[in-house]
């Protein structure tokens, strides 16, 4: 049976495209065959992350002898066919289709957030579309849905390609967005046309980064931040997440995968933030708290023989947290009680930081620069006010930060590098890799293994390779040997861990848990494919090729760091010494941990 499959997989077909012959694996689409020849056929509904839809028809090509043109994304290469991608017939059809889309579109490009990064705008300009060719069939009086903290829907800019719908169902298994109506009433909407805030939406923002136009965007808060910066009474601090520094450059003229940490810090200082701090500090703190929480759970299990919820699952990803609250409300005890780094940072900014700096916390505006849309929702969770104020005042996406830098008129390319401010600006390489799927696990293992055994984790150059890469669910296993006396109860225990990214894969892990068959002790889950580097707030486009490059940059950043383990960071030691006292201590519990709530499925 296996051999038979192998033969099928290797069966090749030969075809001609624009006069060039090529052999491709059977099942390859004409679109991909053409790409191998360096011929780029325009697309709109196609996205490499998603299943084929074949509904925009922009990618049509002419196959000799066929009655109609065919959508190259949805048509597999067939042996012997002769394909033409640029005949007058094809060009005319393509132009017509783009013009039709324009006639249905709200073409106020000048004020659109996605202007210059819109696939319809690009095609329409490239094909020199006459705006007047067809009568406008744009629906009047369509309301923009601003009910969500994170995602904004403007149906007047929707081209109904269903990329968001496929993303929400296929990648995320959430199905917040769906198709309703037929004919001219066909539209993308939510369950019962309810506002987005009232349906099961995780705010992950994957719909945004898969949207070809400005129909789906993040709620934007940068104007408020500009105002705060301009207010001399306010002390505005920003902390930036690890994934921002490896992706921001894409918006500002650098190739994908460029690390722009130093330039970003300089730019933010020039913009006028009173302090530019590092979310990585809070990430290191998360490792301390979460690591000890795991050890605490294990102790209760192995020493006290208590019924402890295992595996423990990470809680850094607010999209994932909202997902489990909706979908598995009876299994919330598996979530680590640790707040996400953003929320830990916020709680400390208005307590520890304010105290150290001698600033009235009431004047502090705490901003988080995040690769994420869900962080906006998280910042506004009503329980996130342990500092006595709203802990985080605003979450900005990488894109919003990019736009702030553009608005400031700086020449980003030529900026000097600067260091993060202190305090809460120092961090380790372990914190940087939080941005990639598997990074939190790797960072945790680096610390936990050392705490338990007194030795460094036995991976060359600290790179825990089984935790790395883009496979949907990754597994690793370590047998604990020669523990320190304190952790003798772990002697010989096999620690099985798993890592999942994309909520589809999260579901796999959760179904195992529900069935009582999960073999794991510790699991990392990130809502977005690839982890935070592929977050819903990252530059557009995002696809696997781009994710890989951002991930490479993340690991390069880690390797370049002097300190690679969270527990070795001086500022971390200092905060425990001077403020928190100990992981899981009273103060930590108050400021750094949280509770979750059961939410409805519908």
């Amino acid at each position, binding site marked *: 049976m296996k051999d038979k499959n192998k033969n099928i997989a290797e069966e090749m077909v030969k075809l001609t495209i624009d006069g060039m012959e090529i052999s491709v694996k059977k099942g390859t689409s004409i679109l991909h065959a053409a790409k191998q020849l360096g011929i780029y056929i325009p697309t709109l509904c196609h996205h490499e992350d998603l299943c*084929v*839809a*074949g*509904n*925009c*028809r*922009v990618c*049509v090509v002419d196959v000799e002898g066929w*009655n*109609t*043109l065919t*959508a190259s994304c*949805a*048509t*597999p290469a067939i042996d012997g066919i002769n394909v033409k991608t640029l005949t007058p*017939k094809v060009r*005319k*059809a393509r132009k*017509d*289709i783009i013009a*039709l*889309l324009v*006639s*249905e579109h709200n073409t106020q490009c000048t004020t659109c957030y996605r202007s210059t990064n819109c696939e319809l705008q690009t095609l329409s300009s490239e094909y020199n579309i006459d705006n007047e*060719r*067809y*009568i406008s*069939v744009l629906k009047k009086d369509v309301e923009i849905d601003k009910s969500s903290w994170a995602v904004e829907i403007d149906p007047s800019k929707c*081209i*109904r390609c*269903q990329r968001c719908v496929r993303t929400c169902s296929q990648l995320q298994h959430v199905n917040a967005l769906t*198709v309703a*109506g*037929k*004919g*001219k*009433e*066909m539209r993308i909407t939510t369950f019962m046309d309810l506002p987005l805030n009232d349906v099961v939406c995780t705010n992950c923002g994957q719909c945004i980064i898969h949207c070809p136009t400005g129909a789906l965007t993040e709620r934007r808060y940068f104007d408020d931040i500009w105002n705060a910066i301009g207010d001399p009474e306010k002390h505005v601090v920003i902390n930036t997440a690890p994934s921002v520094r490896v992706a921001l450059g894409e918006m500002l003229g650098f190739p994908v995968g460029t690390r722009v940490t130093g330039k970003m810090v300089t730019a933010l200082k020039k913009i006028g933030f009173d302090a530019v701090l590092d979310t990585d500090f809070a990430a290191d703190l998360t490792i301390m708290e979460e690591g000890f929480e795991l050890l605490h759970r294990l102790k209760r299990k192995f020493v006290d023989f208590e019924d402890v919820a295992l595996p423990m699952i990470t809680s850094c990803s607010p999209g994932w947290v909202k997902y489990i609250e909706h979908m598995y409300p009876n299994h919330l005890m598996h979530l680590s009680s640790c707040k996400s780094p953003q929320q830990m940072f916020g709680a400390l900014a208005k307590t520890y930081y304010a105290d150290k700096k001698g600033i009235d916390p009431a004047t502090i505006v705490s901003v988080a620069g995040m690769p994420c849309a869900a962080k906006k929702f998280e910042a506004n969770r009503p329980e996130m006010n342990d500092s006595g104020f709203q802990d985080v005042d605003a979450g900005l996406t990488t894109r919003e930060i990019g736009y702030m830098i553009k608005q400031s008129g700086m020449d980003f390319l030529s900026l000097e590098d600067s260091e993060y401010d202190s305090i809460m600006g120092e961090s380790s390489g372990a914190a940087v890799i939080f941005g990639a799927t598997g990074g939190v696990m790797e960072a945790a293992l680096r610390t936990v293994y050392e705490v338990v055994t007194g030795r460094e984790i036995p991976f060359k150059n600290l790179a825990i390779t089984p935790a790395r890469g883009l496979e949907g669910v990754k597994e690793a296993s370590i047998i604990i040997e020669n523990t320190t006396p304190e952790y003798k109860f772990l002697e010989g225990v096999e620690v099985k861990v798993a890592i999942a990214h994309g909520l589809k894969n999260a579901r796999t892990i959760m179904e195992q848990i529900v069935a009582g068959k999960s073999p794991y002790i510790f699991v990392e889950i990130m809502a977005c494919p690839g982890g935070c580097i592929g977050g819903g707030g990252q530059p557009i486009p995002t696809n696997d090729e781009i994710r890989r490059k951002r991930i490479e940059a993340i690991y390069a950043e880690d390797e370049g760091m002097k300190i690679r383990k969270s527990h070795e960071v001086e500022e971390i030691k200092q905060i425990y010494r001077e403020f928190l006292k100990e992981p899981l201590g009273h103060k930590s519990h108050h400021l750094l941990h949280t509770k979750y709530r059961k939410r409805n499925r519908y």
Partner: protein
Amino acid sequence: MPNDSLKRVDFIFDKDYNCKEVLYDAFKLTRDEIIEEIIKSGLRGRGGAGFYTGVKWKYAREELADEKVVICNADEGEPGTFKDRAILEEVPSKVLAGMALCGKVIGAKKGYIYLRGEYNYLKPKLEQEINKFTDILHSELNFDFNIKIFSGAGAYVCGEETALLNSMEGLRGEPRNKPPYPTHSGLFGKPTVVNNVETLVYAVMVFKIGAEKFKNIGIQGSSGSKLFSVSGDTPKSGIYELEFGMKVSDFVNEFGDGDAKAVQVGGASGFCVPRKAFDKTTIGYQGKLKGNSLPTGGSMMIFNSSRSMYNVLHNYLEFFVEESCGQCVPCRIGTQQLLKGIEAIKKGKKSSEYLENLLALSETMRLTSKCGLGQSVGNSFSSIVENFKEEMIY
């Protein structure tokens, strides 16, 4: 006065028929022999697209699968077509026999009738017929085959076979990308034959009449006869079974009211034949694109000189604007543009030259739409506009 050039036949509603006997004889043949007979008869799909029935069955027969499915497409939704309803009312056992025959050939144990939502009143009687028929099938013909009725919900596009499959699977009734074709991956991924009601009846009738005789009826490439739903400006509206190959002029002489200016062949998604082309146009499958020989699902609408072809077209376009599934761009927006366009020209808001834009657009729709619905809107539009340009403008 009866017209000799219109050859009437009576296969479909002929009551001198016993499904048990016909199937009993057919089942004596091997599956491949049955397919061979159907291919030899030249039978093509009566839903309008005209795919060779025997070939379709052969494809499904060749698939290796644990389970296969036969579906009778009774989602008769084309404006001006009402023959499937009559078949299901008058001779349902023939339809069931056709499904059983197909099931036998391809190796299916399940059959479904996808019944148009508006035909739900037929359901009780059909269910009785199904029970009676499957009893005979199980006990006397020793064939384990069961038939269920699936009710459609009224969307025109669900008559398109892959939209029909989606609808049965509980998905939105939207056409799928082809390939894969249903014979390879149909209902829930199982090899599936979807045949029109009338096609299934003819498939069994081939075994009653004989493939050779069936082939000799009609014309080359369009064997046999067909049910026509005649409506419009005619004193004799109704359902007629006629041989393929008739000239539209002969048809009009027989059925028209003496003042016919156009015949819409194949319903809203068909072709409009103007008076000047009555003589040159025959009804059959071949030469589909040249327009001198037209296929049809059986709808023949006659319009006399009192009718405004602008209104006819406007009516059709309104229908398509609503009934497009909306997923593909050329169909969803194209239909709206054609409708708005002719309205604007009529009101003088667009010049008559704008018609050329619309004709070009209708060609793009024909070339690029995902399914037959969007593709055929272009045919219908251009055949009306090109022949009745003045009526569109003035």
